[in-house]
């Protein structure tokens, strides 16, 4: 082991037997031995990394990627199937808070039990019990039974014990979500302080910002393999990119499913309506709009002509308005407005304003509006579509014709991302 490292992980693999129907009892084990089928799931495959003393490492990845298993291996709750893990010094884990708390015992007694589970001796606990109580801000209640505590107080006490174990290596799993915002900030600052004093920190978290703030390195574990390693900001950008792509993929699948479902129900409805519709239709009030030209539907396509309802900031898209001609008209102008879900108008695009010449519509067809740079920031957006004549009289109008989402790996604030660049000019 290199002298400047506190953690060295080399070629670690870990697999689990995932039982479809796990039997715990003798009867189940004997009678259903053939039914106890399992698949060997390789959770970690040949993972290697090292952490220098006093540095921070973030482990990121989507749920089930193996990052928590990696942390469990570091904690020595589990052992790797292959490879070695070497660690120097006392390891403490902030994985389970309040381990061994007894509700009938006082806060102070529970500090002793809980701290002893982290491997502290009585003398060591005596030395820091006052620090623990002060950090938890529970001085008034410390001699009351823990069952009288609120859940926030309970977690505060538990965290205070865990953070005050002077460890050389601190392993943290998604627990910086303790108590109210003020206490969270306090915990985070304490963590930074501990790290500044030379403790090595390994964090598993979805709060990428926290990792960026405290860690020198980040590892993105994907399907049991190291997909990217390096400075947190760079790794996280790659990771976010992947997450967005994945989300868009899922949203598109859902859109496809909805479309198929709609097709199926439409067919049924048509059959039912067919006989009734002929005379019923006449009794209905004539629609206010759309008597001459009717908007049938609106769809948004990406550059590959796939229908989509989720885009990334900066993507190109084309909006396709399908219409039906009941009575031919001349000089028909189209318009589309995009509004954020909270009602803020983002942009309204009108052929009239763009000084376009109106179309002469004789039969059914479609009009395409091409947008080359979706500059809006992540949110949900609604699109309204209108058709008007040259005198600005509305022919047809559909509000909320299409809802779409914009996502981005950039974290700008505001409503739009301007196309921009920076440079320094020396005088």
């Amino acid at each position: 082991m290199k002298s400047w490292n506190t953690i060295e992980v080399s070629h670690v693999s870990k697999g689990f037997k995932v039982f479809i129907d796990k039997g715990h009892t003798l009867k189940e084990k004997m009678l259903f031995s053939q039914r106890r089928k399992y698949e060997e799931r390789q959770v970690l495959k040949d993972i290697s990394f090292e952490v220098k003393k006093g540095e921070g490492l973030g482990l990121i990845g989507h749920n089930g990627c193996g990052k928590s298993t990696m942390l469990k291996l570091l904690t020595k709750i589990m052992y790797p199937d292959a490879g070695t893990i070497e660690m120097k010094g006392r390891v403490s884990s902030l994985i389970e808070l309040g381990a061994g708390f007894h509700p009938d015992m006082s806060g102070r007694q529970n500090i002793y039990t809980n701290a002893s589970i982290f491997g502290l001796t009585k003398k060591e606990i005596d030395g820091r019990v006052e620090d623990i109580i002060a950090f938890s801000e529970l001085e008034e209640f410390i001699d009351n039974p823990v069952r009288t505590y609120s859940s926030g107080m309970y977690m505060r006490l538990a965290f205070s014990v865990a953070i005050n174990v002077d460890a050389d290596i601190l392993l943290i799993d998604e627990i910086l979500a303790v108590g109210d915002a003020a206490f969270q900030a306090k915990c985070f600052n304490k963590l930074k302080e501990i790290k500044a004093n030379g403790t090595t920190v390994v964090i598993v978290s979805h709060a990428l910002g926290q990792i960026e703030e405290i860690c020198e390195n980040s590892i993105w574990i994907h399907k049991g393999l190291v997909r990217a390693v390096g400075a947190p900001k760079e790794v996280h950008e790659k990771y976010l990119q992947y997450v967005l792509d994945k989300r868009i993929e899922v949203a598109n699948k859902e859109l496809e499913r909805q479309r198929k479902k709609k097709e199926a129900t439409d067919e049924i409805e048509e059959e039912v309506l067919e006989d009734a519709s002929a005379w019923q239709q006449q009794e209905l009030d004539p629609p206010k709009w759309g008597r001459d030209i009717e908007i049938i539907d609106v769809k948004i396509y990406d550059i590959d002509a796939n229908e989509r309802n989720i885009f990334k900031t900066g993507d190109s898209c084309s909006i396709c308005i399908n219409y039906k001609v009941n009575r031919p008209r001349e000089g028909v102008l189209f318009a589309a407005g995009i509004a954020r879900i909270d009602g803020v108008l983002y942009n309204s695009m009108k052929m009239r304003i763009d000084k376009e010449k109106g179309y002469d519509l004789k039969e059914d067809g479609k009009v395409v509006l091409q947008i080359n740079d979706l500059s809006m920031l992540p949110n949900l957006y609604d699109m309204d579509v209108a058709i008007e004549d040259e005198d600005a009289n509305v022919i047809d109008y559909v509000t909320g014709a299409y809802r779409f989402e914009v996502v981005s790996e950039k974290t700008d604030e505001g409503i739009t991302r301007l196309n921009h660049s920076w440079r320094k000019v020396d005088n």
Partner: protein
Amino acid sequence: MKIFKELYVYREMIFSLVRRDLNGRYKGSVLGFFWTFLNPLMQLGVYTLVFSVIMRNDIDDFYLYLFVALVPWIFFSTSVSGGASCIWAQQELVKKIYFPREVLPIAFVTSQFVNMILSFMVVLAVLVVSGKGINFIAMLYLPIILLVEYILALAMAFITSSLTVYLRDLEYLLGIITMAWQFLTPVMYSIDQVPEPLRPIFNLNPMTPIIIAYRDILYYKKAPELTTLLQAIVLGGILLVVGGLTFSRLKRHFAEEM
């Protein structure tokens, strides 16, 4: 050998688990900790009633004869059958936090051991009050036999607690096993009453020399024979090695099995 160093570091955890168990056991009851003494006293009352009034026996003061053996037996059988679930019951801890897993059976057996010591206070008090008396020379052997029994109980708890993680039935099976074991140990009768051909089997039972030694010290008021002591120590030592190895072998996959 690393494990001994580690257990030494974690000694406070053992103490606090024992403390928590002893303090928490009678929490909420009116008599509280007093039950620790009341319980064996009331058991003694029942045995006296049954064996001195109803089922008369040739052995003098049979209730004492039985009781000096029954107290250590209860400690042993609780360690074996109750200890079986001591890891399974703490699975939240085992799955989330690292500590030497040996801590759990050690704490469980130690807590039972403390309980037995307190019961022995009652036994000694009864011996004095009943006029039977105590031989102080013989009493010097008591700590040795207590220690040997502690080691034996710990060895068994290592085995049962680690196996139960993999096979939950064991916990229930052990209830009947310890009952059978009790009848195969001279707790309610004398080893002399066992037919000669069966003696070798009885002597392989690690609890046989221990019960004989307790009875020698407390009932017959004499030092136990050296062979009895040696037999107990050797059997206890062998079982501790077997138990320790079994446990260290099985503990690696505890978190995955639960």
